């Protein structure tokens, strides 16, 4: 394996006092793309939230190492600054805060001040990749955005912030064919232009068609029950999760 970015070991997580993750182990190396699949309610999104540090998800045991640091000691903003990114399944609407202001504030958290003019230019380039109209920049963050627009805005943030590891939580769900295509073009761009790693949580395989996948993991009932290469995606695509559920 190449340089280790993420090392999750024996992770147990409670939500609303119920155990959702029951001992998860996962390692992701630099530049690798991992796919996490599994039936509804398996705990895939919980893993994403727990990694990012959502206060409603309580880590009861286990460790999360991220680039040699212990993530569990960090608040979500510190985790983001360390290079972690989570693309939300349902991005929150924030009225009155423009997408541009939000992006720039987030960008400057990396410790780099940038002039508005320069930043606009940078963002516009990324928007072109996603086929996004510039007018979105002046709109309130996610407010009144359609499902597809919200997901595009998430990928735009991914491209602007260039994290070391991005978790994409069901970024393809609820999108039409064209929107999935656009989103995967954005993700592909991230793969190729940065050395960032990816953990793609998904139900379907559409988003994966044009992406290079290194490893696939299957999660059932709060545990990772199978690991494989890209061929595992095909397998699940053909026969579903049935064989895991029977076990």
């Amino acid at each position, binding site marked *: 394996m190449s340089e280790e970015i993420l090392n999750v070991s024996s992770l147990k997580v409670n939500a609303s006092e119920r155990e959702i993750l029951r001992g998860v182990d996962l390692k992701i190396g630099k530049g690798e793309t991992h796919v996490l699949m599994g039936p509804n309610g398996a705990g895939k999104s919980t893993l994403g939230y727990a990694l*990012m540090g959502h206060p409603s998800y309580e880590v009861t045991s286990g460790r999360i190492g991220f680039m040699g640091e212990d993530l569990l000691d960090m608040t*979500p*903003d510190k985790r983001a600054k360390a290079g972690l990114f989570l693309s939300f399944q349902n991005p929150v609407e924030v009225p009155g805060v423009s997408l541009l202001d*939000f992006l720039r504030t*987030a960008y400057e*958290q*990396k410790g780099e001040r940038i002039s508005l003019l320069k930043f606009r230019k940078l963002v516009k380039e990324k928007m072109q990749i996603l086929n996004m109209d510039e007018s979105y920049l002046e709109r309130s963050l996610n407010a009144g955005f359609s499902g597809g627009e919200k997901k595009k805005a998430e990928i735009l943030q991914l491209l602007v912030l260039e994290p070391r590891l991005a978790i994409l939580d069901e970024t393809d769900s609820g999108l039409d064919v064209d929107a999935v295509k656009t989103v995967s073009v954005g993700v592909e761009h991230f793969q190729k232009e940065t050395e960032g790693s990816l953990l793609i949580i998904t139900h379907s395989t559409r988003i994966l068609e044009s992406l290079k996948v290194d490893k696939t993991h299957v999660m059932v009932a709060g545990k990772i029950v199978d690991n494989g290469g890209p061929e595992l995606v095909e397998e699940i695509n053909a026969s579903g999760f049935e064989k895991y559920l029977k076990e």
Partner: protein
Amino acid sequence: MSDREKTFVDDIDRELYDFRFDSTDSYRLESGLTEEIVRQLSKEKNDPGWMLELRLKALDIYNKTKMVEWGPDISGLDMDKIDTYVRSNTTMKGKWSEVPEEIKETFERLGIPQAERESLAGVGAQYDSELVYHNIREDVKKLGVVYTDLESAMHGEYEQMIKDHFMKLVPPTDHKFAALHGAVWSGGSFVYVPKGVKVEIPLQSYFRLNAPGAGQFEHTLIILDEGADLHFIEGCSAPKYNVANLHAGCVELFVGKNAKLRYSTIENWSKNMYNLNTKRAICDEGGKIEWVSGSFGSHVSYLYPMSILNGKGSSCEFTGITFAGKGQNLDTGLKVVHNAPETSSVVSTRSISKSGGISTFRSAVTIMPAAKKSRSTVSCQSLMVDDISRSDTIPAMDIRTPDADVGHEATIGRISDDAVFYMMSRGISEEDARAMIVSGFAENVSKELPLEYAVEMNNLIRLEMKGSIG
């Protein structure tokens, strides 16, 4: 504005800014507000006879009127020592060392230069701003616009106009503090915009903060003739500190036929202040009044700008925000009277309460029988930043014709944890995330303000949100 215009400095009438009541011992002899005090004030201000009469009449009403008995507690105002408020009104002197630390710190954070700080704190005079004020005056003068202090205008060609309008819209009988204002008012602005004149630059009373009495019993009288257009900005985001803690100003706005007036206020009184201000506008046919109002300061506020839509097709827009922090009880809102057909009012307000602050939105919309085919929409949104703060909404509607369209909508909410988490997941600290969400909530007002004021307001919100966690 070019540098050479600064030569106008010699032309400034210094008399207006002279403090002549440095020795205040004579005032200490009696407590309470006496006729003698009012007479002497009038004499010092060189009032015309009719003004002295008005003052005495108002004093009489003041003495006969009961104290306000609804709304937030104002028992902290010692009315037996009302003379002290009046006295400091005329001297406004204090020491920089006596200005509260929190105010000094806010000046620091807002990046206000020292000279200006002293001026805003009422302990120093700032000649630069007078100069700017003077230059603006020269600019608009070319358009035939009158923009001056009320005291000197009373002695010029506009005396009759002032006499015809002064405290006609807000009579001293309105309430006890309107009567007090009538008796002891001092300082303020007079603006007259002639027929058809559109003033491109906003006039800003900020430049007059320094005048004696500004920020205490100041009177603003604005008259727009037919088809005129003006934007007037009152106040600024810097905290204004006064040695005395009562503000009972009065604003009277006369909007002529098809004229349009925008009146913007960003107010940040020091947190010891009782802000009992009265503002009122009246619109002729097709006239429009737009209020943009931000209330951040004071210990207690009673503030309900009133719009009287008196001519057919006249309209009012009200956009406001109130931010009540620790120890603040801000009772703000508005009144609208629809008194002619086809009038409309659109109200959008936000209130924020934090650290135990109390924010109350109070509105009164009256649709008179004559106001057929009128429309009114009131929307107020409240945001509570924590569990110990309070937010109330008290809307009143009095509709006397069936032929009107009236709507009211109110929401009260909290900062969503998910929104905070979302922003934090992008590297933004919890404090900054909360401040951004609150600033976004206040966008209805900030987008209506000139850019520099909007930036100031956002800075102010950031400051108020500091240390809001935990």
